[in-house]
């Protein structure tokens, strides 16, 4: 019984480590290959959440990291990761970092429309890219 449990835990840890490493590898590849800030943030933001999350799962199954601590850690990762990548993307857009190979931009349209929706905290749209 004890042996079986250990085997299952080891299998879970192995899957989590392989999954997390693959995820991180693809994310870093994307980070290198993608052309601009916004697309690179996609790669970097998700790696820092799910790559780390799967490795935390592996640490619970294989090492002595407690389940409670791991759950708190995972919750913090899932809450903070998207907030960080949103803040970076928003800051990049407001300071006017251009997008490459852009197909469609609803935000620029909304900003240039005379009675379109305003945006929180942005007082000038003159220096933004169109």
């Amino acid at each position, binding site marked *: 019984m004890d042996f079986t449990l250990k085997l299952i835990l080891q299998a879970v840890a192995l899957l989590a480590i392989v999954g997390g490493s693959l995820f991180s590898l693809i994310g870093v*590849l994307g980070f290198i290959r993608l052309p601009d800030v916004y697309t690179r943030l996609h790669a970097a933001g998700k790696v820092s959440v*799910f790559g780390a999350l799967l490795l935390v799962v592996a640490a619970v199954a294989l090492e002595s990291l407690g389940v409670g601590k791991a759950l708190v850690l995972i919750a913090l990762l899932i809450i903070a990761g998207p907030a960080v990548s*949103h803040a970076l993307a928003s800051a990049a857009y407001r300071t006017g970092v251009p997008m490459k190979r*852009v197909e469609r931009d609803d935000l620029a349209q909304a900003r240039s429309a005379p009675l379109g*929706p*305003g945006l*929180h905290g942005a007082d000038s749209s003159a220096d933004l890219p169109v």
Partner: protein
Amino acid sequence: MLAYARLVLICLLLFLALTENVELSNIVLGALIGILVAVILKPAPESLSIRRLPVALFNLARYTAWLAVDIIRNGIRVARIVLDPKLPIRPGILAIKSDMKTELGIALNAHAITVTPGEQVVEIGEDGTLYTHCLDVVASAAGAEAAQRTRRRLMEGIFE
């Protein structure tokens, strides 16, 4: 009073999760810390019914499961884009209407979109429109409406 009790309970659960020790002395210590936090923070009284809690928790679990499936599906799609030698990205910003009524609802909606690989909220308009940057804007625009409808239905189950 109910808001205070809820804050104390959350603090106690967090404390027990971090210390991983359910002896009586530790529970008392956690409760004392929770009461201290509640006294300092003074949470605003809020109308919440305990009877709705099981339904809300069930809906939260259902929403989390749906989100997990969505993340895996989109993760595979994005991995294929990144690993393709031609790098077939079609980036762009897509306006997604969020019909959530509360600020918390809009924030949760934006979080759900940003946590999905290949989509990321850049800006939130004053009417709650989520301006989302997508790696493949054509594919995302095709699926966005249906995904947003499911997301909204599931989240309404949590809040009301």
